[in-house]
């Protein structure tokens, strides 16, 4: 195959997997909504736990929303490859002529569009719960836009590694959450810096850098992880 053909094959694989997973998600919209419901409930617990003092809530708002977004992402990651693994589709994808890394990339993209993106849409609403003002919510959305794709990308690796194991949920959390620390720190850090009247370019640049590194490395690592799980 020529380089051009491989290139075309990669795009075809990515678009095919993306459209397929999005169509599947649309047909079982409840799964997407359940994750959003979890996000809302988890966020709502914090004011009940720490008390309704608006100053405290404003202080912890960005952190709480980020942590809950991570947990919601974690919840939905278990099903990223699971159904296709169980019925053998994943193995057929591995055998297909389309580059497997591209297919994995498409699946991860679909995962972000069905979790990270809806979470962002809900964020202004939960931002109000914590008394964040409009511009703070804007900064928070900017960090979520850069950070949540990283969650899906790194998550794809670990979701593939834990395929078909017992007690996947807790294991996935133990493997993933430590790796999410940098995204959390810079995501919340940008909002905190903005509230303190400081520049946020640094944090956003680092989040962007993390996104680029994850975009380059994670699909390949996830594809390798699926191969490990299948053979």
């Amino acid at each position: 195959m020529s380089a051009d053909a491989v290139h075309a094959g990669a795009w075809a694989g990515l678009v095919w997997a993306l459209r397929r997973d999005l169509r599947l998600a649309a047909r079982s919209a409840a799964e997407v909504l359940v994750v959003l419901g979890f996000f809302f409930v988890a966020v709502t617990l914090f004011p009940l736990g720490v008390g309704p003092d608006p100053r405290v809530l404003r202080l912890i708002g960005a952190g709480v929303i980020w942590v809950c977004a991570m947990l919601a992402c974690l919840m939905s990651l278990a099903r990223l490859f699971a159904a296709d693994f169980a019925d053998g589709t994943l193995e057929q994808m591995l055998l297909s002529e389309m580059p497997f890394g591209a297919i994995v990339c498409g699946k991860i993209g679909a995962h972000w569009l069905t979790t990270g993106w809806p979470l962002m849409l809900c964020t202004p609403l939960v931002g109000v719960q914590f008394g964040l003002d409009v511009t703070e919510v804007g900064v928070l959305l900017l960090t979520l836009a850069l950070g949540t794709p990283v969650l899906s990308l790194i998550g794809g690796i670990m979701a593939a590694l834990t395929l078909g194991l017992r007690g996947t949920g807790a294991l996935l959390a133990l493997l993933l959450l430590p790796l999410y620390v940098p995204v959390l720190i810079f995501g919340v850090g940008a909002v905190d810096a903005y509230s303190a009247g400081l520049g946020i370019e640094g944090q956003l640049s680092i989040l962007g850098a993390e996104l680029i590194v994850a975009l380059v490395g994670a699909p390949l690592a996830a594809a390798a992880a699926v191969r490990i799980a299948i053979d």
Partner: protein
Amino acid sequence: MAWIYRYASPATFYPVAGVLAPWFMAAAALLAGLGLYIGLIAAPTDFQQGDAYRIIYVHVPAAWMSMLIYIVMAIYAVLYLTFNTRLSAMMMNALAPTGAMFTFLALWTGALWGRPTWGTYWVWDARLTSELILLFLYFGFMALNAAIEDARRADKAAALVAIVGVVNVPIIYFSVQWWNTLHQGASVSMTASPKMASIMLSGMLVMGLAAWMYAIGAALKRVQTIIVEREVGADWLRRHLGDNAQVGRVA
């Protein structure tokens, strides 16, 4: 180069590990004895921290080993995934519990030292926090390894986790450091402590060497167990352990 491949075979390495392990353990005991003598008896009391500082003779070597062992694990992971040498994966698995133990020891002794020195067992200092996350990485590695029944898949999955982890360790360390400086100023800093007297330094280095020897000895001992587990029923193992060994009959 041929000798490398020869010792990459578990059957060849098993007796070698058996011979080497007690030597490393003996060296560890000897060095630890010497290091503790220097640290607890020969070295003077610190004029600022009193005798509480003496915990560094355990704490600093443990912290060194916690990071070093994770890197060595990642190197074995790369070797395993590149050359498909099973022994590399076994060594990687054998090192993990020792690494986690040293990480825990570093955190524990740090807390004990922090109480009299900083007035609290725990602060969200950059080093402490990244050490804690390192402990989580060890736990994740071992948990994944334990969750997968097929040994080959477990090795490969754990190797990938070790490599992903080692790429992330510097990122995590850097971000935690940045986070810490934002949230609180350098109210406590270990780097600000006065320059160390040479006898204290030498005590610490001897203890560091003892920790190396112990880690190597423990890993060799553990890799022997892993080899026995994996090679149950193999002819060479039955010959090696003698006919009355139960090993062959377990499978």
